[in-house]
C-alpha cells in the first residue's frame, strides 16, 4: 500500500457535532494527527453541512450547504482535500460532489445560491472529500502505524461499527468497491485494519453497517433504542469489550440508548463505546484525557486501567 503525501496536510472540517456532544472525537482526531505528524488546517468560517435534516426540507439546500464548505476550502484556502471525521458531514460532501457532477439542476441551484450569498460557486472535481479513516490509512498506513505504537491494544476485543452514512448509498462513493485495497461498502474494513495494526483483536461483527436510528434518536426514541440494543447485544455476543465508532451521531446514539435501554426497558448491556481515534491515540502513547475519554458519557476508565492504557 503506497502512502499518499497529499493527505499529510488537509483541510479539516469538524462540523457542528464535533463542537458539541462529539467533542471527544474532535479532540482525539486532532491529538492523533499531531502524534502522527499530520497537518490539519481547519476550514475557515465553515457552516453546517445540513446533517440528516435539511434534505427533508429540501435536498438541494443541503447540496448548497455542503458545497459552500468545499468552495471555501478550494477558493479561500487553496486546499484540494477536505477531511471530515463525522460520517454525516463526509456523506453530505460526497453526495454534493455526486449531484454537482451528475445533476444540472443541482448545479444551477448551487450557482444561484452561491452568487446571492456572495461567494464562488463550488464546481465538482475541485475537492476530494475523505474520511478520517482514509486520512490515516492512506497517509500513514498500517505498517507506519504499527511502527509508531507505544502502547499496544493487544488483549482488547473490538467490534468495529461503521454505521450507515459511511457506505450508503454506494453510488456517491465511486472510490469504494474498486478492487483489492479499496474500502468495501458491504463489509467495510478500514477501521478494522487500523486498529489491528495498533494491536487490537477485531471480532467478527455482523452489524458493522447496521443503522442505530440516529436520524430519529430524539423524534422516535423507542425505535432508536431497539436498534441500538441490537447493535450492543450483537457486539457483546461476538465477544467484544469495546465498540469502536467513527461517527458522532452513532457514538452519542449508542451511549444515549445504552442508558435509555437501562432506564426504560430494564436491559443492561455492559460494553464500552470509544471513538476509533481514542483507541488509536492511546495506542500511540497518549493519556486518556488527551483523547477526551473524560468527555464520553460512558466511563471506560476501570477497563482501560486493566488493559494498561491508563
Amino acid at each position: 500500500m503506497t502512502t499518499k503525501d497529499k493527505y499529510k496536510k488537509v483541510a479539516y472540517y469538524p462540523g457542528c457535532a464535533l463542537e458539541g456532544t462529539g467533542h471527544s472525537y474532535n479532540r482525539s482526531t486532532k491529538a492523533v494527527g499531531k502524534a502522527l505528524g499530520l497537518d490539519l488546517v481547519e476550514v475557515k468560517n465553515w457552516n453546517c453541512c445540513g446533517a440528516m435534516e435539511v434534505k427533508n426540507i429540501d435536498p438541494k439546500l443541503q447540496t448548497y450547504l455542503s458545497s459552500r464548505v468545499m468552495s471555501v476550502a478550494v477558493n479561500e484556502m487553496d486546499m484540494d482535500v477536505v477531511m471530515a471525521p463525522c460520517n454525516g458531514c463526509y456523506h453530505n460532501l460526497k453526495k454534493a460532489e455526486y449531484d454537482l457532477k451528475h445533476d444540472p439542476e443541482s448545479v444551477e441551484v448551487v450557482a444561484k445560491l452561491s452568487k446571492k450569498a456572495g461567494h464562488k460557486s463550488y464546481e465538482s472535481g475541485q475537492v476530494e472529500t475523505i474520511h478520517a479513516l482514509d486520512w490515516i490509512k492512506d497517509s500513514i498506513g498500517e505498517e507506519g502505524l504499527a511502527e509508531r505504537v507505544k502502547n499496544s491494544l493487544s488483549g482488547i476485543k473490538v467490534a468495529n461499527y461503521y454505521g450507515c452514512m459511511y457506505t450508503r448509498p454506494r453510488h456517491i462513493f465511486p472510490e469504494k468497491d474498486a478492487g483489492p485495497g479499496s474500502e468495501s461498502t458491504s463489509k467495510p474494513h478500514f477501521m478494522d485494519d487500523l486498529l489491528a495494526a495498533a494491536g487490537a483483536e477485531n471480532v467478527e461483527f455482523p452489524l458493522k453497517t447496521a443503522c442505530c436510528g440516529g436520524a430519529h434518536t430524539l423524534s422516535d426514541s423507542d425505535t432508536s433504542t431497539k436498534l441500538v440494543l441490537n447493535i450492543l447485544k450483537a457486539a457483546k455476543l461476538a465477544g467484544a469489550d469495546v465498540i469502536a465508532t467513527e461517527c458522532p451521531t452513532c457514538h452519542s446514539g449508542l451511549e444515549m440508548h445504552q442508558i435509555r435501554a437501562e432506564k426504560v426497558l430494564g436491559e443492561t448491556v455492559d460494553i464500552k463505546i470509544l471513538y476509533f481515534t481514542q483507541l488509536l491515540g492511546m495506542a500511540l502513547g497518549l493519556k486518556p484525557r488527551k483523547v477526551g475519554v473524560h468527555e464520553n458519557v460512558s466511563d471506560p476508565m476501570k477497563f482501560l486501567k486493566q488493559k494498561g492504557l491508563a
Partner: protein
Amino acid sequence: MPIHEKSLIRPENLKTHEELVIDGVDVSGHWSTFIESRVVSDYNEAMEDEIAALPGGENIHRCWQCGSCTNSCTVNAINPDFNPRYWIYLIRMGMEDELLRDKDIIWQCVSCNKCTYACPRDVFPEGVMKATAHWLERKGHTPKSPSMHFDEVFTEQVIKTGKIEESRTIRRFFSRTKQGLMQPWMIEMVKRLLRNLPVGLLTRMGLATFVAPKTRGWSSAAAAMQEYIDEQHEKQEQALSS
C-alpha cells in the same frame, strides 16, 4: 395458499372456517383462510404525481415491485407493517384509503438508505418515504410528525446562524413537541457525563448556550436560502392543488 405477507391482509378481509367443504373437497385447517374478493372503485389518480412533485418522490414511477426495499428495510425488521414496497404499489395504483391505514407509521423511516442501496431501479425509496410522509401532512391526513418538527427546528437554526448548537436544537424540539426535557434517561446521561468533570467541554457547551456559534457574514446566504425554500414551497403547493 401460503400468504407471505399476511400482515397486508386486514383482519376484516380474512374469513376463517374451522370446517369447510367445497365441491366435495375438505378445505378446512390450513386451507381454510380466504381473502374475500372486493371491488375497488375509488382511486385517487393524482396521488402518484403529487408525491412525485415533492422532494425525494421524483423516481417513484420507476418501481417494478421487486420488494428489495422491504427486504432490506431496517424498520420493517422491527415492525412488519412498515412496508415500502407495498406503499409504493398503493400510491402508484391510487389506492388512497389503503395507504391511509398506515399513515401514522410512514414517517418512521430512519433514512439508513439500505433500500436505496438495494434498489435495482434507482427509485430512491428513502426519498419516496419522506415525500409520502410530507404529502400526508400537507393534505391534512396526519399532524406534523415528531421527525418533521425536528427537521424544521434544525433547518431554521442552520438558516439563521449557519451552524447547529445542539442544546438549542434539543430544547426547541422538546418544547415544540410538548415533551418534558427532564426524562429519567436524560438525567442519568447528564449525571454520567458530569462524573468525569469534563471542565473544558462543559465551559464550551455552557458558553454556546448563551452565545450561539455562527458562521460569519451569513445573512445573505440565509436570505437566499429562505427565498429558495419559499419558491419551492409555492411550486409544490401548485402541484398539490392541481
